[in-house]
């Protein structure tokens, strides 16, 4: 029998969670002390909160790295309603201020290699991953002419004068080939593979991580902007981005203005035009004035876009954390209960570019958590 403590929000998790997995998890109707479970032969029950690119890829990495575990992905939103779904998914990394460049480069490289293998396989179409070439252009020569990720993407070089003629307002540029990872396809593809490995997928809104106790032994928090509440991380704020999805199938190259504010990213079924960076703005409704501005800025770079049709506006709230990505284990404690939580959130603008690298790191943290012996806490009196 589960004890309902005051202040706990009643959710369906109060009901026994039953399900079969190929790893052999039993039905949950739990009263167990999670740490005796961790030392027993029973599979470790892991909850991954969040089903955006970070949540699903973390669940995937955990399933590969951590033996004898049963994983449940829990989220109120799934593709196509996640923040990831709004993003164009271009593999061009962003810099996180407190993250050392070698770490960032490793995350980016791991993500690039992972997606590159998919792009060159028969899975590419289903997974929504493909190569695209293009240009990053600057109105003045940037301080750093060769970015840290130049040797991770393909064929990186400076643009020639002839190439720059296309952009009369710009004096310098990079030409390279990178990957586009489209979440509306990638997330369902990951979900399908997760289900195939026995991972459970649950649609639930979690208001408090303690709801997951004691049904789960470890929680992996991939809730993005939701961590403002779930992890009580008041530093998290949205960096609002508005984009236009248009039909313009003749556009085969990406174009990104060096500041990152204006971009044209051609994908499988549409071209994404962007964008904005509005700090602290929670408004999910598109703004018509902003849309006009985006369209105008993009047409200035690619005049043929004036022939674009089927224009749709989208808004996403990037999960911005000033300190950078939080990859950290926290042992929650309350009234004698303990709950290990691996935090994995705060990717801001760069989630898709580094998702696999950070997911591998998160999986390592989960693995450490599962393996480390701990002093058991006394059973609470029921």
């Amino acid at each position, binding site marked *: 029998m589960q004890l309902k403590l005051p202040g706990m929000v009643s959710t369906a998790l109060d009901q026994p969670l039953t399900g079969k997995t190929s790893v052999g998890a039993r039905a949950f109707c739990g009263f167990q002390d999670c740490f005796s479970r961790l030392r027993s032969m029973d599979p470790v029950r892991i909850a991954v909160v969040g089903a955006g690119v970070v949540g699903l890829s973390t669940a995937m990495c955990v399933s590969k790295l951590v033996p004898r575990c049963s994983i449940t992905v829990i989220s109120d939103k799934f593709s196509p309603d996640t923040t990831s779904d709004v993003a164009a998914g271009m593999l061009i990394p962003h810099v996180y201020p407190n993250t050392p460049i070698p770490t960032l480069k490793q995350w980016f490289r791991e993500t690039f290699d992972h997606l590159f293998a998919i792009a*060159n396989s028969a899975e590419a179409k289903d997974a929504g991953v493909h*190569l695209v*070439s293009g240009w990053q252009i600057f109105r003045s020569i940037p301080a750093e002419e060769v970015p840290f990720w130049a040797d991770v993407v*393909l064929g990186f070089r400076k643009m020639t004068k002839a190439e720059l003629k296309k952009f009369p307002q710009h004096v310098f540029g990079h030409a390279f*080939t990178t990957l586009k990872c489209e979440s509306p396809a990638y997330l369902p593809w990951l979900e399908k593979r997760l289900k195939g490995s026995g991972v459970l997928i649950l649609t639930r809104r979690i208001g408090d991580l303690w709801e997951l106790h004691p049904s789960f032994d470890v929680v992996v928090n991939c809730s993005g902007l939701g961590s403002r509440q779930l992890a009580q991380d008041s530093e998290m704020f949205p960096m609002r981005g508005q984009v236009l999805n248009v039909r313009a*199938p003749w556009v*085969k190259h990406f174009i990104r203005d060096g500041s990152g504010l204006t971009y044209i990213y051609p994908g499988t079924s549409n071209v994404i035009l962007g964008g904005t960076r509005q700090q602290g703005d929670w408004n999910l409704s598109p703004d018509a004035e902003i849309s006009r501005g985006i369209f105008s800025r993009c047409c200035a770079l690619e*005049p*043929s876009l004036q*022939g674009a049709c089927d224009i749709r506006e989208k808004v996403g709230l990037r999960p911005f954390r000033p300190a950078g990505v939080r990859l950290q284990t926290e042992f929650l404690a309350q009234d004698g209960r303990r709950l290990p939580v691996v935090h994995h959130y705060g990717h801001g603008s760069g989630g898709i570019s580094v998702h696999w690298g950070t997911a591998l790191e998160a999986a390592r943290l989960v693995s450490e958590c599962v393996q480390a012996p701990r002093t058991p806490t006394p059973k609470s009196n029921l």
Partner: protein
Amino acid sequence: MRVVVIGAGVIGLSTALCIHERYRSVLPSLDMRVYADRFTPLTNTDVAAGLCQPYLSDPRNPQEADWNQQTFDYLLSHVHSPNAANVGLALVSGYNLFHEAIPDPSWKNTVLGFRTLTPRDLDMFPDYSYGWFNTSLIVEGRRYLQWLTERLTERGVKFFQKKVESFEEVARGGADVIINCTGVWAGSLQPDPLLQPGRGQIIKVDAPWMKHFIITHDPEKGIYKSPYIIPGIQAVTLGGIFQLGNWSEVNNIQDHNTIWEGCCRLEPTLQDAKIVAELTGLRPVRPQIRLEREQLRFASSNTEVIHNYGHGGYGLTIHWGCALEAAKLFGKVLEERKLLKMPPPHL
């Protein structure tokens, strides 16, 4: 002055437009017509993938290299306009793949961003060990022909669907100048043993994730006999067939299999692609393009013929340079006949 252009593929229509643009203002009596038995979408131009890329080896006639360059520069200047997609133009980048190292092509500085492939690039193509990457243009045959037709119609040029049996018939009908753009069928108007069909077959698929062209080369087999994948505006063209002397305009199942297997091996993601069309075209193959004047005499008058045919598999690649040259020849005709009221426009 009646000018009849025979042929409504890219060569006929672009030559017509080029001449009309340059001479209508100085030759008010210019009455131009296009005669053809086939119009878009039934011409060979409509079958072409439309990638602007000359052959690897230098052309027998060095002027052709200039015409290729002029065409590329002309199309490049239009690809940056708001109207580009309406004209059928787009920039596209991609790969040329080889089994061994070869010298850079003479057009390496015409295209944009030319470079040789790095080992990581080549990892994507295990059957090949050397290659190039560059940015070029596609001109979608069908859209471009429609655009040319609109421009010509605006200018009052008239189109007639008819099968011309002889130059004489056209001359006796009142033509002063005939522009012969009959492509692979030029031999029916005047025998030309140098002209042969280079039959090609292509499969068009829906594969919008393909953003690059991939062209493989096998020097032993020859041009266009090795798989190629060329994305267009709406569909992706798969090809790799070149059969000299084959006049069949019917799709062939073995050729289909050759194309499909070759292209899927090159790019496994194509296995999921839906086929939207399959077409056969006859490239007008000739050791070099016939672009020259000829005077024919019927009854008591001279008829000027300007031949512009034999563009092989590079018609779209070279069309505008040839049109400019044909327009120059036309200008000479006018000068000789003292028809110009003003000095000819600077070409």
